[in-house]
């Protein structure tokens, strides 16, 4: 098991856009690689944007290694994300030069970046030739993931990193995620990952309607079921506007890893 120290701590967090509150009273601590599972629109990206300082906090505090993120300035090696909006410092650069710029600012490893992108079939020559906006959505996602993985930031927020990747490339990305020694929070709505990741390295948290439920060790969820309703023997009960769901170890219920996407959950209700 990879040893990691307690890292990202969120206390009593409310956040949103204008008067619309998206995140409600989040209290959570991520001290190892964590899969953040939630359907589309559950607030995963807003949570990442808030941690990065891009979305306004209405209340609450966020810490990395007991360092309040409100007070952070020019602090390299603390946080990175693959959110596309943080990679728009310049907008004419080739993919290669954009990566070089960010890896210089973040003190990342350009050789590692090129190694990762080559594993995804993107050569250095290709990256030098193409501007970011001329790449496909999948290629852009590969580059942003690779920049994040090529840094040594203590906390890495990867928002839907598998989106638009073909199955073979998804497997390559999983290998790099497993090799990374830092705390990764990986948001996705795709539950098939539960069976693909190394069970001892990962925790799982659920996000529904702006609230986080969990955190549970991945190994406990490998053979878990999703039951519509509440049960006394549940590992976790999630109450949503569509009803309550329970994560349970025994049937009846639908195997969690068979659901594929948590968006399906609302259809079950």
């Amino acid at each position: 098991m990879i040893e990691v120290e307690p890292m990202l701590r969120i206390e009593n967090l409310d956040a949103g856009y204008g008067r619309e509150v998206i995140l409600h009273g989040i209290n959570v601590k991520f001290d190892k690689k964590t899969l953040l599972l939630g359907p589309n629109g559950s607030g995963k990206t807003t949570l990442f944007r808030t941690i990065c300082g891009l979305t306004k906090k209405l209340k609450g505090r966020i810490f990395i290694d007991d360092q309040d993120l409100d007070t952070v300035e020019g602090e390299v090696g603390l946080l990175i994300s693959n959110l596309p909006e943080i990679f728009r410092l310049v907008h004419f650069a080739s993919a290669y030069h954009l990566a070089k710029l960010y890896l210089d600012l973040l003190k990342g490893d350009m050789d590692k970046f090129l190694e990762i992108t080559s594993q995804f079939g993107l050569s250095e020559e290709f990256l030098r030739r193409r501007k970011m906006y001329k790449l496909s959505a999948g290629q852009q996602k590969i580059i942003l993931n690779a920049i994040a993985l090529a840094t040594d930031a203590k906390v890495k927020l990867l928002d839907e990193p598998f989106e638009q990747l073909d199955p073979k490339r998804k497997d390559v990305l999983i290998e790099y995620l497993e090799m990374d020694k830092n705390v990764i929070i990986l948001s996705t709505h795709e539950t098939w990952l539960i069976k693909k990741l190394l069970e001892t390295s990962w925790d799982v948290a659920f996000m529904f309607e702006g609230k986080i439920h969990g955190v549970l060790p991945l190994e406990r969820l490998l053979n878990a079921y999703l039951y519509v309703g509440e049960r006394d023997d549940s590992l976790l009960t999630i109450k949503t506007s569509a009803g309550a769901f329970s994560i349970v170890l025994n049937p009846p219920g639908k195997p969690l890893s068979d659901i594929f996407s948590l968006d399906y959950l609302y259809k079950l209700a």
Partner: protein
Amino acid sequence: MGERGPSIYFRTSLLHYLLNPYSWFWGVVFMSFWAAMSAFVFSKGTPEQYLLHHFGSTYGQLLILCVGSVAIGIVKSLYYSSFSVRFVTKYSKLSTKRFYVEHFLSTIIALMIFALVLWLLQALFYFIKFEEVYLPKNPVGTIFAVVISVCFIYAFSMFETYVVICLRRPLSAVFDALPLMLSFIAYAAFWIDFKIYSLAIPFYLISAIMFYFYTNQKPFTGDIIGNIRYLAQHDSVPKGAELDPILAIASMILWTIALSIASIFLIKKAKGVSIEEIQL
């Protein structure tokens, strides 16, 4: 470069502005058209001994319009990158102050290059028309005038951009072009006398300071055409029509410092904004 030197951001940002075709067109090509008009059309009737004054005041006007046009590109690119600026100033070695300094220096160098090319083209047009190169009486002072002019335009552009980003109101369509719109105050000074208030109008002071260093003659408080005519007829200027150049320079520097401090404060406060959110 070591940790104390500029980051790759400085070089990337400089290239970004120098390779921008819109900046070259609106800042240099379009302005050089008016420089040609000044040499071949607007200079008619100007006494020969005042052609240097004509050249200097025209260049002062075109300089502010040139950098004002380029500033629109600066404002737009800052809107586009506001989230990125927020992130990198917190979580990369590009702290807020370092970002401001590197962005400032790269932009200033780009603006200086635009200003130099514009001067070369204007000098070429005047040479073709009058067979004389109108060099400034005080070359060092003229370069200083260009530097403080572009510094002010930069500080102003950055300030107004971050006001929009912090307010998160759909104002950008109006505010994008504000530096250029206000630059036309300098053009209005051909006919309007701002009197003592000219000291508080940096957009006019740019052309006034340029005129001063170019001709070694104190600039006017406005009504440039009327005052040059009076000067030609009486060999002196009307009482109170001259602007103290030292006070003008001090005013420009104070404006630039105040706007820079306000900008750094606003950059720290800004969360970033999506470009769609601030469109009308």
